[in-house]
């Protein structure tokens, strides 16, 4: 029997929570993200579609939604990075008897707004939203969405009829956006009592009416907290942006090899930067041309560029699923994704270069990145005069990148749109950053 290993993490460390079809793994690294310790497998043999880190209110809590084929889906949490899991005797997430449904799978666990540290959300199959208002001790079905007139007409996607994306509005407390495959995007503006379909302009390739009110198979939606009204959406065919909180969507799939795909991630510090991983088609479901490429926009969907440095560009028939890509909050940001073939890739420089972190995993279905501890209290090595001199002497680009990673603490606090834009602009034009990027490229 394989040994289960554990990691110990301290403030400032970076975690990668990796859910596979045969259990969960917890990877830990220092801020440089060069070497990873691996904990797990946890929930051996069980598909883990949902993992989340909740660092609010001084917690160090990992949530895992397991989905045993035999014993049903269970929500568990760990306060010591996986060493012990709290699995209550009575399942935390249960449909009430009168709902007439039984939980099949937990697809998403989403901590609520930073200023509501006891609020958590879970998206499940059959498609429903559960909420906790006591830090995850008790959970309740959101009746407003469950009793929505559209719900009986939602159709399951290939993966099942699931609610897989939950986006709390950082400003408007009553507003929450969810995505269902295949039902589409729904939004509440009154704290979950009523919900409206928000799919205007999003194509449903597989229906006779290509632009219905609902029924779209949305795969992922992302938003930057500094731009509450702007959303990016990866659809089952189609790539979209909304500037009005989902009221309307416009196609932004210009310059990508395919507008089909699952995964989508937003840059932690730049609201204009989004990452996707195009897949050739819904029939083939592999990377186009046998090339594993992440695509990035730096102008909010105006144009896209391929990021391939360090990724296999020949015979790479890979699939990356909807929750298998995420960004960490470090600076430069780390972008991480896992494949169905059990490989974990990462970039420590916002996507400029990539490397294989781990292979030989079971099929990866979930990757979530997190920084342990309050970012402003992260223990970061001081850049003393001696360190600067030593860094200057080093010619190895990896070390230089590591030192640079150590310099900055992740900025996770809510910022205004103006501040975020100014900061993003500064980061892009900072001469020192430019010089370093140049050095790494050589």
């Amino acid at each position: 029997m394989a040994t289960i290993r554990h990691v110990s993490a301290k403030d400032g460390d970076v975690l990668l929570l990796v859910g596979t079809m045969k259990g969960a793994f917890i990877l830990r690294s220092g801020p440089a993200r060069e070497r990873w310790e691996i904990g797990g497998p946890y929930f051996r043999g069980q598909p883990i579609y949902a993992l989340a880190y909740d660092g609010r209110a001084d917690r160090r809590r990992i949530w895992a939604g397991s989905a045993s084929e035999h014993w049903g889906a269970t929500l568990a949490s760990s306060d010591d990075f996986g060493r012990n899991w709290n699995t209550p005797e009575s399942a935390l997430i249960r449909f009430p008897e009168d709902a007439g449904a039984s939980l099949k799978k937990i697809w998403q666990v989403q901590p609520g707004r930073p200023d509501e540290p006891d609020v958590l959300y879970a998206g499940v199959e059959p498609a429903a939203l559960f909420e906790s208002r006591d830090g995850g001790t008790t959970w309740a079905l959101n009746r407003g969405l469950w009793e929505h007139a559209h719900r009986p007409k939602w159709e399951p996607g290939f993966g099942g009829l699931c609610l897989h994306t939950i986006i709390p509005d950082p400003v408007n407390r009553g507003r929450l956006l969810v995505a269902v495959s295949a039902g589409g995007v729904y939004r509440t503006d009154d704290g979950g009592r009523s919900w409206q379909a928000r799919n205007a302009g999003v194509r449903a390739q597989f229906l006779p009416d290509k632009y219905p009110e609902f029924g779209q198979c949305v795969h992922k939606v992302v938003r930057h907290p500094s731009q509450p009204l702007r959303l990016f959406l990866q659809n089952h065919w189609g790539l979209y942006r909304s500037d009005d909180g989902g009221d309307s969507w416009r196609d932004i799939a210009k310059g990508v090899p395919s507008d089909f795909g699952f995964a989508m991630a937003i840059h932690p510090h730049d609201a204009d930067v989004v990452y996707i991983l195009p897949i050739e088609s819904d029939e083939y479901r592999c990377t186009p041309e046998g090339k594993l490429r992440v695509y990035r926009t730096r102008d909010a969907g105006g144009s896209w560029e391929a990021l391939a440095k360090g990724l296999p560009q020949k015979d790479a028939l890979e699939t990356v699923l909807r929750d298998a890509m995420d960004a960490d909050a470090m600076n430069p940001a780390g972008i991480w994704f896992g494949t169905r073939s059990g490989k974990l890739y990462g970039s420590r420089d916002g996507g400029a270069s990539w490397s294989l972190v781990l292979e030989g995993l079971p099929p990866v279905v979930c990757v979530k990145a997190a920084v342990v501890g309050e970012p402003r209290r992260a223990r970061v090595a001081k850049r003393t005069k001696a360190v600067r001199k030593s860094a200057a002497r080093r010619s190895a680009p990896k070390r230089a990148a590591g030192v640079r990673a150590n310099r900055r603490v992740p900025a996770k606090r809510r910022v205004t749109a103006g501040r975020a834009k100014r900061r993003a602009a500064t980061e892009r034009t900072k001469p020192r950053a430019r010089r370093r990027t140049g050095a790494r490229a050589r």
Partner: protein
Amino acid sequence: MRVVFLIPGQLRAFTDGAGRVTVEVTPAGTAPPAAGEALAALWRLHPGVRDRLVTEQGQVRPHVNVFVGNESIRWTGGLATPVTQGAEVSIVPAVSGG
């Protein structure tokens, strides 16, 4: 009446590690108790077993088999299957998955 349950390894975390659990079942009438009554007695003793074995709607999960003696209750009346005196009730994960 006493009923002996055989608990699979995966559920022993919820039975204090026990592989055999004996429960006392009081049938409602003169007939022998149903499998459902015996199971209810099991999870009165070990509540954690319940949500792993049955769905929120009270149905035995599709990939779990419950045997009274050597017969799966799937074919003998489900949770209404009578549990005869001295019979052992086995909870067994089905052969499924990949």
